[in-house]
């Protein structure tokens, strides 16, 4: 199984969720994060104090999927999160040793 983490632009969240639902992903965990990358931030000024804000609001998705679905998930995210402009984000794929559903105690792909 794979544990896929994707960082995307916040306003793309709904589109990505729908794209993932369509290919059969049943669960997603979403976190509001701040991203630092090539996309440049902005400057804020409060009276005399100037702050360069390098961090931009992003949304992080975590999706655990079976190995065979992993590729489709990466594709689906890439497609639905794309704006073509800098800062669209990244997808990270890691190996997932084990999963367990708390409610039922099921493990493995059944638990996804």
């Amino acid at each position, binding site marked *: 199984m794979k544990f896929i983490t994707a960082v995307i632009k916040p*306003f793309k969240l*709904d589109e990505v969720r729908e794209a993932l639902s369509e290919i059969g992903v049943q669960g997603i965990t979403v976190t509001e994060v701040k991203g630092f990358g090539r996309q440049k931030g*902005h*400057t*804020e*000024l*409060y009276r005399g104090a100037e702050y360069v*804000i390098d961090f931009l609001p992003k949304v992080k998705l975590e999706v655990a999927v079976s190995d065979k679905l992993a590729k489709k998930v990466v594709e689906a995210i890439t497609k639905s999160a794309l704006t073509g402009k800098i800062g669209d984000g990244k997808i990270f794929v890691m190996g997932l040793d084990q999963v367990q559903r708390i409610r039922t105690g099921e493990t493995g792909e059944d638990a996804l």
Partner: protein
Amino acid sequence: MKKIFSKIGLVGLLSFFLIGFSQVGMSNEVFDLSNGTMLLADNTEVATAGEAVEEAPSLDTGDTAWMIVATILVIVMAIPGLALFYGGLVRSKNMLSVLMQVFVTFSLMSVLWVIYGYSLAFTEGPYNTWIGGLGAAFLGGISGDSISGTIPEYVFVTFQLTFAALTPALIVGGFAERIKFSGMLVFLTLWLTVVYLPICHMVWGGGLISSWGAIDFAGGTVVHINAGVAALVLAICLGKRLGYGKEVMAPHNMPMTMIGASLLWAGWFGFNVGSELAADSTAGLVMINTQVAAAAGVLGWIIMEWMARGKPSMLGGASGAISGLVAITPACAVVGPMGAIVLGFIASMIAYWACTSLKKSLGYDDSLDVFGIHGVAGIVGAVGLAILMAPQFGGVGYDDGVTTMSQFMIQAKSVGFTIIWCGVISFILFKIVDATVGLRVSEEDERAGLDTTSHGETAYHS
């Protein structure tokens, strides 16, 4: 573009209908014409929240005390009241932009009022039917000792200033989350000059509409219909917000909206009771009417919600309160408390319908429902008072020779006139300012939010 015109057409049609309707009524009134002059003279007294007609021009400390406070209350309506009511409803990335739009509009209009606004609205001028003169520009000719009625003229000037500063700020709700700040300031400056000041003069400064005998005690047409229509025109002309109807645009901070609604409610006593310009018996009537119309408005809206979807909402309660308050504004000195309850209740239900069904079917994006609430409830109040002022409904009754029908026609006509005046001119102003300064921010800026892109700030940090 075609769609825009079709929508504007709709509003236009409505106005023509109202005016036409009033003409029909007028013809029924032919035999009333003998009483006409008297009627107008009498009614004017009720209609003018602006003019002082008392004969003994000596200062009364009680009236002055009340009017100073009334003025402060209207200030609180604008800042922070209206700013929070609106600000809570937008997304957090645009919070400061809304607060700023209201705050700076309020400030700019205050200064303009002193420079030429008061003079054009409340003095006599060569085109007195439409607009006042420039004799009191820079408040020239007013001294510390000038008295207006029983209060210092400066207090009257400041009280009226707050109306002129609040009304343009109300429009902010129509174009929130996408307007260009500089363009907005230019637009609203022009709008004050060629929409607000003339209408204000025509209703309260002794101009056209007051001569019809229209009743607008505290600003149903001048403030609410005016602002509502302008907001509608701008909302349509500017187009929808990016992602409207697709993305979640839920209010980012409902408690702020609740605070705003509450301060509007409290401040509205300054607005309505203050329009009596004295702490007298009528003030008492206006006070109870304002309170119960707002309360009934709350109940009206949440009952609709409860029936329509099983859950009454806080935003519904707040919206209902404002709807009730808007509706009672023109009517507060002529209906009785039970009439005020009825008016607030019904106006709130109609506003609910306007903000849900009507808006959806017409498809415009009036971000914060300025038209749906201020425009629609304002119209209901302005025409509804003609019925509820009848003695059998506990109202103060009609002047000699005026009937429910004739008053209704006059009200409809003044509403229709205001809609057209405001609608047409706002549209023209939009075209001019949009073509020159520009009125909408870039797509990228709208995405990122106006707080950082227009003002270089963020509302919340940790």
